[in-house]
């Protein structure tokens, strides 16, 4: 290739060009000589006609594209040289850019991998679930009524058959089964899945074969697929177990597939966590079990997962499935509320839900941080550009075109941005680790693989280019503007020439300050939220309480007697342990309440609807949780033993139902019990005592009326045991477990933890996460802004040394000089703060779903943030201002 050889042998191609052009000139001169001109005249005319030799050469070079390549390298080399010469500037700029690009990439990675592309399944963006929404009462649910996301087999089959909006539909049903081998039993979270599940999700197994619909035939041998995590944890990733038989749930089943790590489909355990099941067993929905929903076993319903047809919106799918559901409601009137709708929910929303707003807030925060960084670096570059004014003017005057100069300046910012991006990726790598550490459990789909993948690196690269442009453009456009003559003539530190640049710098600085105020406001509101949550009066002391959940080994219902016997002995032995103050059985976990129920007061008629939360507990409950008795008596051991129909209510219930009149002795009925097969139906419970209210709908919502019933009134498949300890509850886990096992070896113990851990997970984790992330972004932003203010002020002072020298020579005091410089800085910061506060006023409302207990326009937060910014600004101005006061007039004026 000729361009390549020209590129590699530049000097030769240069000399060849030189020779060619000189030949032209010499021939011309020779011709003119021959025409009789004097040697002098001939040379003069030939040169005049030919034009500038160097310019022609430059134009010839411009026709070759290797020249552009060459220029690029030259600019690159020059940029490197310049930055190396000004190492302090380069390091500050690269560090700032790395922070900006690193945090942006981190948040992008979380959003992209966790929110936009979390699932490895086929057509993942069209996956959706739906539930029945009770239009009349959204807060309180009776079992079988109200909002419901589980469907009976009959409903599943009808919906699958008749809905037009879905490509296909699968059903999942959660179950607990025990894997039994020689060593003992292992509880497994099982998902019974409809046989089309694996085809529907389109994920091939890591090992073994995919499960096909034929596997669910009654005649076919029972098979199952295993979760990668279980395989690693309990079978050490042994590939040989595929194809072997396991006794699970008392039935021998063949393991045919081990699914890849990201295959984590499962049925949710609690509200905001959705765990992948340990194993998946194909199972056909049986139209025969279409009957009523058993309140005690609400799990025997299919959770649905559908893939919407392309182009069908969730709204359209909702109205389509509503038509089918209306038909179903006519067939099974008991299962449907009088007025209801179907709600289709994108699958990812099921997991992410409310947290999406937090992620978007973070995205906005890092975007602002990046903008702060860019502005800061732009400002630094601008200051440099002003000192290099003369250099640029010289370049322009010896023939550099404007685009060439702009390119050169941009190249410099590009080199900076690229170095920043490389360092930023390192930051992002660690940042992501830290991010995942503080990320609350279950806020992102388990399937998501959050890492620095290609998409994130591409994103980082593109924001790097944008950053380079943003940083460089201001100074690039600034430098070649003014007319050459004055810039060449000026001293380079003239006051007049800098006014325009000074305004621009001040403007950028004000913008930076304003952005950092918005970030600080976000962090401040999260801090206030966390503070408010930490100071919620729950009505009881959650510390020193250990929680464990007992369930019957085969998932079967305990009878009332079995249950009483077991818990009686368990509680008796646990209470006797040293270090245990009290222990109790409960159905729910304070402060998260229990199932709701409508209530009726004996002897009272009327249409008013009263409802309450209920809890089933033993006599030790009030002592364990620490609830104060107000009137009457508490539940006693005798109440438990004989399952007496008595109830303790809280004062919220007493107030709302009996308007302050002493309710002890009155009788109330809990309608929810009528729906539970072995519970006392149509029974009125006598109120024996009134206790103080505690929070029962989480920390954020106000308390609902609450009733405490003896746990022995009906059987269940499980229940919680709460233990109040005198020391650290976690140190008691082992001994409590052993004690419970000593009563019954087969009982399974799950979710053992402290009450405080639960509180942390449900209520504190999200605001803590918000505080840590927003706080670090705001902190980084403030740091960068402070450095920025310092840089600009220092530069301003250095420009005005001369002026200050004159002032001092004329008798200005150090104090007034200090005031003058500080005033200038503080003015800029103040304008930034005011703009920032106004912007926050408009922007913090987007955080509204994440903050609690404080208004989005909380004046205290505004004031605190403003103070913080003023202090940071003053600190940043002080050093340059003090330097200004130390200007020696003699030295300053000597350079005149």
């Amino acid at each position, binding site marked *: 290739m000729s361009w390549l050889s020209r590129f590699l042998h530049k000097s030769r191609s240069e000399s060849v060009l030189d020779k060619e052009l000189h*030949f032209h000139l010499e021939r011309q001169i020779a011709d003119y000589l021959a025409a009789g001109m004097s040697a002098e005249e001939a040379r003069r005319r030939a040169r005049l006609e030919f034009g*500038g030799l160097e310019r*022609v050469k430059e134009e010839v070079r411009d026709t070759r594209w290797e020249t552009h390549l060459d220029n690029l390298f030259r600019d690159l080399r020059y940029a490197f040289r310049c930055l190396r010469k000004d190492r302090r500037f380069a390091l500050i700029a690269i560090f700032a850019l790395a922070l900006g690009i690193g945090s942006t990439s981190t948040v992008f990675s979380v959003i992209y991998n966790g929110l936009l592309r979390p699932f490895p399944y086929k057509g993942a963006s069209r996956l959706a679930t739906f539930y029945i929404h009770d239009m009349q009462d959204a807060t309180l649910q009776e079992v079988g009524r109200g909002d419901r996301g589980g469907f009976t087999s009959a409903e599943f089959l009808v919906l699958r058959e008749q809905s037009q909006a879905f490509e296909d539909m699968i059903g999942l049903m959660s179950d607990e089964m025990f894997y039994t081998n020689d060593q003992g039993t292992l509880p497994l979270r099982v998902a019974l899945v409809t046989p089309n599940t694996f085809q529907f999700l389109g994920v091939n197994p890591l090992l073994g074969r995919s499960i096909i619909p034929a596997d669910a035939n009654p005649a076919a041998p029972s098979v199952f697929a295993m979760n990668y995590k279980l395989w690693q944890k309990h079978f050490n990733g042994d590939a040989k177990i595929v194809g072997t038989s396991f006794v699970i749930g008392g039935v021998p089943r063949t393991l045919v597939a081990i699914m890849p790590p990201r295959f984590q489909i499962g049925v949710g355990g609690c509200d905001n966590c959705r765990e992948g099941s340990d194993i998946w067993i194909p199972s056909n929905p049986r139209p025969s079990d279409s009957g009523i929903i058993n309140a005690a076993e609400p799990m025997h319903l299919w959770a649905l997962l559908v893939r919407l047809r392309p182009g069908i919106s969730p709204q359209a799918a909702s109205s389509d499935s509503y038509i089918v559901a209306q038909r179903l409601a006519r067939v099974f009137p008991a299962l449907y509320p009088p007025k209801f709708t179907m709600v289709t929910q994108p699958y990812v929303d099921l997991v992410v839900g409310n947290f999406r707003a937090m992620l978007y807030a973070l995205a906005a925060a890092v975007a602002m941080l990046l903008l702060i960084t860019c502005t800061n670096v732009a400002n630094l570059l601008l200051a440099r550009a002003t000192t290099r004014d003369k250099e640029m003017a010289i370049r322009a005057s010896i023939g550099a075109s404007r685009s060439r100069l702009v390119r050169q300046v941009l190249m410099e910012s590009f080199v900076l941005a690229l170095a920043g991006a490389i360092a930023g990726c390192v930051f992002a790598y660690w940042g992501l680790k830290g991010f995942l550490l503080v990320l609350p459990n279950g806020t992102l789909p388990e399937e998501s693989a959050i890492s620095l993948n290609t998409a994130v690196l591409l994103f980082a690269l593109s924001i790097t280019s944008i950053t380079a442009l943003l940083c460089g453009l201001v100074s690039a456009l600034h430098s070649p503007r003014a007319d050459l003559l004055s810039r060449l003539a000026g001293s380079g530190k003239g006051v007049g020439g800098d006014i325009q640049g000074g305004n621009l710098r001040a403007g950028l600085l004000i913008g930076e300050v304003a952005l950092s105020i918005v970030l600080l406001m976000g962090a401040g509101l999260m801090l206030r939220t966390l503070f408010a949550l930490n100071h919620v009066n729950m009505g009881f002391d959650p510390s020193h309480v250990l929680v464990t959940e007992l369930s019957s080994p085969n998932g079967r219902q305990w009878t009332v007697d079995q249950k009483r016997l077991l818990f009686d002995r368990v509680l008796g032995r646990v209470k006797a342990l040293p270090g245990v103050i009290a222990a109790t059985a409960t159905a729910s976990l304070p402060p998260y309440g229990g199932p709701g129920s409508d209530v009726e007061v004996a002897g009272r008629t009327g249409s008013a609807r009263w409802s309450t939360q209920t809890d089933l507990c033993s006599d030790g409950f009030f002592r364990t949780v620490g609830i104060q008795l107000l009137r009457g008596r508490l539940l006693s051991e005798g109440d438990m033993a004989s399952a007496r129909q008595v109830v303790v209510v809280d004062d919220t219930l007493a107030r709302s139902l009996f308007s302050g009149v002493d309710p002890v002795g009155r009788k109330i009925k809990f309608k929810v019990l009528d729906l539970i097969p072995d519970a006392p139906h149509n029974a009125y419970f006598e109120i024996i005592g009134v206790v103080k209210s505690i929070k029962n709908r989480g920390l954020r919502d106000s308390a609902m009326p609450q009733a405490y019933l003896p746990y022995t009134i009906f059987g269940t498949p499980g229940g919680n045991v709460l233990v109040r300890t005198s020391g650290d509850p976690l140190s008691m886990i082992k001994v409590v477990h052993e004690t419970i096992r000593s009563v019954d070896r087969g009982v399974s113990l799950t979710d053992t933890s402290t009450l405080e851990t639960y509180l942390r997970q449900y209520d504190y984790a999200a605001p803590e996460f918000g505080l840590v992330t927003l706080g670090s972004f705001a902190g980084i932003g403030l740091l960068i802004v402070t450095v920025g203010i310092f840089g600009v002020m220092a530069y301003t002072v250095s420009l005005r040394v001369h002026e200050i020298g004159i002032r001092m020579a004329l008798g200005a005091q150090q104090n007034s000089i200090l005031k003058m410089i500080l005033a200038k800085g503080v003015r800029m910061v103040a304008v930034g703060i005011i703009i920032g506060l106004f912007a926050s006023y408009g922007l913090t409302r987007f955080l509204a779903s994440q903050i609690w207990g404080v208004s989005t326009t909380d004046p205290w937060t505004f004031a605190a943030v403003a103070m913080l910014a003023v202090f940071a600004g003053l600190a940043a101005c002080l050093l340059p201002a003090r330097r200004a006061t130390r200007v020696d007039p003699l030295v300053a004026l000597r350079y005149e």
Partner: protein
Amino acid sequence: LLDSSIYVEFLGITVTEGKQELLRGTLDMLVLKVVALGPSHGYAIAQRLQQISEEFFQVHQGSLYPALHRLEDYGWLQSEWQESDTGREVKFYALTKKRPQTIRRGSSQLGTYDRRCRSNSADGRVGV
């Protein structure tokens, strides 16, 4: 970033970018036509163009060279160092086998340009 109009010192006419393209194309065409008569070196080509019109290079003859190099880069011209009639090593330009597809288009462009130049020369300014 760039000024909206570019000043071109070619034929002494101030042209905008679009017209600059036209002029560049025209110069290329004329150069190709001259070289088509037989291989020749830059100086000879310039002389020939000068003969066609006394005032062809109203400003600088040097502007011929970027055109020559550009055409060589396109592959329409090839060059070779040969001895000239005066016995010096000179770079000779000749047509290549590769015929520019744009010649046809260029000719029609040239037609309009010719007409404009002729009307100009009627005012006694430029002629090709």
